[in-house]
């Protein structure tokens, strides 16, 4: 096992899949030089510029071409330079990719991966920090994944590339270089649709994904010293949600805190909350809580704004403690 | 329409475009008796979106026109009848079968959900002192729904949340702890008074019921028992806790000589019973005395509202009534407007209702001052907990014959302690002292000339 960064996990997943299956290729803006965030470094040198294809500046075409190629039988990985710029491709993703298999009554399918680097990494400002997962959430026909650590990042990307359906892969920019972990050298996948208990506990349940999951674990460790035992569930797949795991985790303690960097209203947390409320009324020991940034369009540049808007270990720890003491 | 229709296939108004719900027949191009080929145009239809010549979906003889020119028909409504030569064609929506949703399978009546109390049900039960074990459940699996509880409360069967214990400690003899799903609590009927025990209208069994307790899987001789906490007990717990934590309690006491009151009552009680059919209790006199004193010191009848003190105009006395199982406080509304006889009647009425568990919600709300007849249990000193959010709680202890000094001589008098717990944010010793003095004066002024009505 090697310890690698989240970014390297993503890069190596693509490299290994491209090696394993010659139908796999990456396309997007600047992917040839390695991508503006270095996610595709080395791929062009190794596989050539056709399989690591620089596209014109047109997100809709990036997604649409990927969709066409995938329908033919290729395994296309479409990179959106930043998730903030995915919106021109929304029509292709929601009207087309999500519905191809359903509208053709099973005749055609669309095995694409749309990689979307999302989340605030510091000084990103309004258009390089957004979390747009809730825009696509709730669209039947799409699979959405959001790993929090290198192991899940690599396993999920491999699974996504091999999957027969369209997968939006949300990779958190803050995790890229700040989260490292052990990743096996042999081939492995993390199944799509399965959440993961990252920490067992008895006093409260915390459900999260992406970078905030890591903050939750850090906070849990600190609270442990105070005698508060947190049970932490990493969603990993946002759609379809692992309902079984969510309910089991919630029932474990009866107190649930959902944490995500996407703003509260209409976020994934709202759906998780509704699922728990619908099925576990008599297991609940406290109202289901959500900790998310405020409902403003995006996070501004100034550090003051970032501090106010973004979640961090301290804010999460306070919320966890309050719920534990309820 | 009562006219009989010709037999044949109905031709209906098609759904010609999105959002359309009707069409107007502007012209019939065929007449009854005409033979129509399938898809021959039979009429012209006008709609909001498109105007069309309508082809007939079937071939046959046009036998009847149902919608005349100029009239509008809804999508799906029949406009004419064509008698087909034998074949049957379907028009949109054509479907394999019209599937009726399966009737919900009859499930055997099960009561697995009887013990599942939703948060709403628990809250209501707590607020209104409802014993959920007595509430019929009309939800699935016998579940008690919120409506079930609301209905139960409205029917007057609930008993309000008690606010205080009568004694300093929780009485071990208090009955009414019932664990799990047992039978509903049976109200105990009042017994005839036993003279010479001082009777206040509250009749208790001589030997109160011991709590039914549940032994939880304990091996022999362990000696631990668990008693389930009923919703009412919950309410008492939370209410008293709230009162104690929020209101800074102070306490004071005064002694009153009620010898004359005793004489007065003994003289009048039999005739009163004959005439009114109810007991003339000391409590009626006490209430009158207290209420008059409140009139002189209205601040006793107030609530604390953080930045102001609200003095309530109506004097609604919360009367503490003890039942076999718990304590409730029905309210005598506008007690200052009542005579002693009227008060006696109210006391009797509310007490009986409380014992029978038939107090309505209205009868338990709106109290502004509490009077507790702790003496009926033999107490001579009490430290009552104020009934949040009132300002004071007054107790009338046991009347005890005592040797006292009057004019430097020893006499045997009927003496009674009057205790008062007060909210020290609103009240203090001076005003309460004055209030109690007034109550004492009122009580000591009862004599054989006192009018009941």
């Amino acid at each position, binding site marked *: 096992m090697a310890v690698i960064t989240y970014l390297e996990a993503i890069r190596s997943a693509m490299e290994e899949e491209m090696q394993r299956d010659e139908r796999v290729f990456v396309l997007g803006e600047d992917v040839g030089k390695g991508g503006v965030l270095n996610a595709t470094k080395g791929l062009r040198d190794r596989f050539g510029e056709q399989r690591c294809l620089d596209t014109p500046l047109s997100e809709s*075409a990036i997604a649409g071409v990927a969709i066409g190629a995938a329908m033919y039988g290729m395994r296309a990985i479409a990179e959106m330079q930043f998730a903030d710029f995915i919106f021109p491709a929304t*029509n292709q993703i929601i009207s087309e990719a999500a519905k191809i298999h359903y509208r053709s009554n099973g005749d055609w399918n669309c095995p694409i991966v749309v990689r979307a680097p999302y989340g605030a990494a510091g000084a990103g400002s309004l258009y390089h920090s957004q979390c747009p997962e809730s825009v696509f959430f709730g669209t039947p026909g799409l699979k959405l994944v959001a790993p929090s650590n290198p192991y899940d990042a690599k396993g999920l990307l491999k699974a996504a590339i091999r999957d027969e359906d369209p997968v939006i892969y949300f990779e958190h920019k803050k995790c890229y270089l700040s989260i490292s972990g052990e990743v096996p050298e042999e081939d492995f996948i993390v199944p799509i649709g399965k959440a993961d208990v990252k920490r067992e506990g008895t006093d409260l349940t915390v459900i999260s994904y992406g970078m905030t999951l890591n903050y939750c674990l850090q906070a849990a460790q600190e609270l442990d010293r105070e005698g508060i035992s947190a049970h932490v569930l990493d969603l990993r797949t946002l759609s379809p949600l692992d309902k079984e795991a969510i309910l089991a985790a919630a029932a474990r303690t009866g107190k649930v805190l959902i944490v995500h960097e996407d703003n509260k209203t209409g976020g994934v947390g709202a759906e998780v909350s509704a699922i728990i409320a619908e099925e576990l009324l008599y297991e609940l020991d406290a109202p289901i809580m959500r900790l998310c940034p405020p409902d403003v369009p995006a996070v501004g540049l100034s550090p003051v704004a970032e501090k106010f808007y973004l979640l961090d270990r301290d804010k999460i720890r306070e919320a966890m403690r309050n719920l534990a003491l309820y | 329409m009562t006219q009989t229709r010709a037999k044949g296939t109905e031709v209906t108004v098609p759904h010609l475009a999105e959002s359309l719900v009707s069409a107007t027949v502007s012209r019939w191009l065929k007449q009854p008796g005409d033979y129509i080929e399938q898809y021959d145009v039979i009429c012209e239809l006008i709609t909001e979106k498109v105007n069309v010549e309508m082809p007939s979906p079937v071939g046959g003889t046009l036998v009847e026109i149902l919608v005349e020119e100029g009239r509008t028909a809804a999508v799906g409504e029949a406009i004419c009848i064509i008698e087909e030569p034998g074949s049957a064609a379907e028009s949109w929506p054509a479907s394999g079968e019209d599937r009726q949703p399966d009737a919900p399978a009859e499930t055997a009546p099960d009561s697995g959900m009887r013990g599942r109390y939703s948060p709403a049900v628990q809250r209501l039960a707590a607020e209104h002192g409802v014993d959920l074990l007595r509430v019929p459940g009309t939800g699935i699996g016998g579940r008690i729904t919120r409506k079930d509880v609301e209905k139960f409360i409205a029917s007057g069967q609930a008993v309000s949340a008690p606010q205080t214990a009568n004694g300093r400690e929780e009485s071990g003899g208090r009955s009414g702890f019932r664990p799990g799903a047992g039978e509903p609590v049976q109200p105990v009927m009042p017994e005839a008074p036993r003279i010479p025990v001082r009777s206040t209208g509250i009749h208790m069994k001589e030997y109160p019921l011991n709590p039914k307790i549940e032994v939880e899987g304990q091996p022999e001789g362990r000696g631990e028992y668990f008693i389930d906490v009923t919703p009412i007990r919950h309410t008492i717990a939370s209410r008293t806790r709230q009162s104690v934590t929020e209101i800074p309690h102070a306490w004071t006491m005064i002694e009153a000589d009620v010898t004359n009151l005793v004489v007065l009552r003994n003289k009048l009680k039999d005739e009163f019973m004959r005439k009114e059919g109810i007991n003339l209790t000391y409590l009626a006199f006490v209430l009158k005395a207290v209420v008059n004193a409140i009139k002189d010191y209205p601040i006793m009848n107030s609530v604390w509202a953080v930045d102001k003190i609200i003095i309530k105009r109506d004097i609604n006395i919360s009367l503490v009534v003890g039942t076999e199982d718990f304590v409730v406080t029905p309210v005598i509304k506008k007690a200052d407007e009542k005579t002693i006889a009227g008060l006696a009647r109210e006391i009797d009425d509310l007490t009986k209702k409380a014992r029978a568990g038939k107090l309505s919600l209205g009868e338990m709300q709106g109290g502004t001052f509490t009077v507790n007849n702790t003496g009926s249990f033999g107490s001579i000193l009490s430290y009552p907990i104020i009934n949040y959010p009132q300002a004071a709680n007054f107790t009338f202890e046991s009347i005890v014959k005592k040797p006292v000094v009057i004019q430097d001589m020893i006499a045997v008098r009927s003496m009674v302690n009057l205790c008062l717990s007060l909210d020290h944010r609103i009240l203090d010793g001076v005003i309460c002292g004055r209030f109690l003095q007034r109550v004492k004066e009122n009580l000591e002024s009862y004599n054989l000339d006192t009018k009941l009505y």
Partner: protein
Amino acid sequence: MSVGQLNRHRMLGLSDDQVLEMYRFMVQARRFDERAIILQRAGKIPFHVSGIGQEPGQVGMAFALQKGKDYLLPYYRDFAFVLAMGMTVRELMLSIFAKAEDPNSGGRQLSGHFGCKRLNMITGSSPVATQIPHAAGIALAAKMQKKDFVTWVSLGEGATNQGDFHEGCNFAGVHQLPMIICCENNQYAISVPYSRQLGKARVADRAAGYGFPGVRVDGNDALEVYRVVKEARERAARGEGPTLIELMMYRLSPHSTSDDDMLYRTREEVEENRAKDGIPKFRQYLIECGLWDDEKELRLQEEVKQLIQEATQYADKAPAPKPEDTLRHVFAQPVGEA
């Protein structure tokens, strides 16, 4: 007729049988389309989007491609095209009756939303022009996998204003993809006439913006269309990249059964264009080639009438999809299965 015009088809490489087949498809498509409108008005089907007047051009395009090999992305008026490429009238009827046996979508999509893997026909949707980037993707795959098929995609002139048209064309031009983009300019996008849709611009000229040739052609002349598309196909197969072809046509029918076309054009204009209808012109050409006559015409009409009738009845009686089928095919790989 001059010698040069006689047997134009032969000079283009089409056999007599082929042109007769072309005519047959045109007539089938026309009768199908007309019947579909009647069915909707009679309340037997919910909706139909018609392509009357566009049949000759579509058949011309179809014959220029390689059936069974080339990948096809038709748009929702291409009934004649899909018939010429192997879909049957019965299958089209099943589609507009929304029956379970419909190969395009199992009764899920509207009339004209084609899709059939068996025919290399990609599934289409209602948002217009999304198929252009898809076509580019398929052409890209052909290039990457070194396959020699060509990708053909069509759309209306209104759709050429969508962002996806420009993004797809640009992509195709940059990467010199083996594809043919055919714009069926039928003069109206629902009610908006060409003058309001593109103004003075020509669709064909847009190709220059992307670095590849754009050609305008008379969409009512099946043989001319054939010639142009054939040439474009050869260019693509040679690796010379995409071609944009603008077929000038006229939509004789309203946009759909929900459209009242008298709100935006006159009956005179429609009749004027009906006089230019390509089907009678093609029939005339066949007669002048000595390949056709009134008797054959009558026989064909009767044949097609039977075909349509049989197909209509078959579809009418065919079973609808089961209610629970609504839940099927959300995913090709349902979660939980490897």
